[in-house]
């Protein structure tokens, strides 16, 4: 399976999905004009990876700003990992935040409150 590489722009995240390592990292700021157009290929890559018999996946979120449409799609990614985890896969979510960034820390906390998949909040 191919890796997923999306270069960052002023309003979209950098994304690298490493199929061999079973890991995908999303970093930067996200306020795309069309969030569906940006995030659907990412969700699709994760689904394909899982369908190829993957046993584990790690998602690293290293975001510093996300608009509300992007929050919704991040929630969809987390939900996908949760479904995978409940079905017997090993899913892990790592949520990174800067020491002085309460917004991103709070956002991570809120996601962590409701998921049944290992969710690590990590101060950078």
């Amino acid at each position: 399976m191919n890796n997923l590489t999306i270069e960052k722009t002023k309003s979209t995240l950098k994304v690298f999905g490493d199929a061999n390592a079973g890991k995908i990292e999303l970093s930067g700021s996200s306020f795309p004009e069309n969030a569906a157009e940006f995030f659907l290929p990412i969700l699709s890559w994760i689904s394909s990876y899982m369908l190829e018999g993957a046993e584990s996946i790690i998602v690293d979120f290293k975001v510093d700003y996300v608009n509300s449409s992007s929050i919704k799609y991040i929630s969809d990614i987390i939900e996908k990992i949760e479904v995978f985890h409940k079905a017997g896969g090993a899913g892990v979510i790592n949520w990174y935040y800067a020491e002085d960034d309460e917004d991103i820390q709070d956002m991570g906390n809120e996601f962590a409150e409701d998921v049944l998949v290992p969710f690590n909040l990590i101060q950078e």
Partner: protein
Amino acid sequence: MGTPISIYQYDGTFTQRVIEGMHEEIVNHPLLQSNSQLLKTLVFIAIELAQNIQRYSANKIKCGITWTGKGFLSIEQTENGVKIKAKNQIEQEGQTRIKNVIEKLNSLDEDSLKELSKQQKKADAPQNSVGAGLGLIEMRRKSGNPIELEFIEYENNITLLCITITI
């Protein structure tokens, strides 16, 4: 009463390039460098309001293959905090729906807003919405203040929607 200090003002078409430029301008504004939390909240609300104009303004022009909304957005430092104002045209039939949504959000306490936000993250996006239906909820939560709303009637079934949020 002190005179408000203008931090940002734009009147025109809210292309993605304009919104990216606004983001850069706010993030680098000298008046906002001493309070990183205020800056974060301000960036969030300004981009949400700008993207609402981009998507939902009734006054649109064609930019490439997409239609992009026109409107007005300003950010001012006032004695009572930072005020973000957004204005754009809407069709009159949308007025009641917007009024009801904002009145409901303004009536909710912090915990209820958090609960609503969680529900909305898991729900499908509302019909006729390009966004996630989360924007107004998150703006209300992050500002900690009621969303101020005003409608100015135009002619030909068009109303000017004016939203002000104070941080």
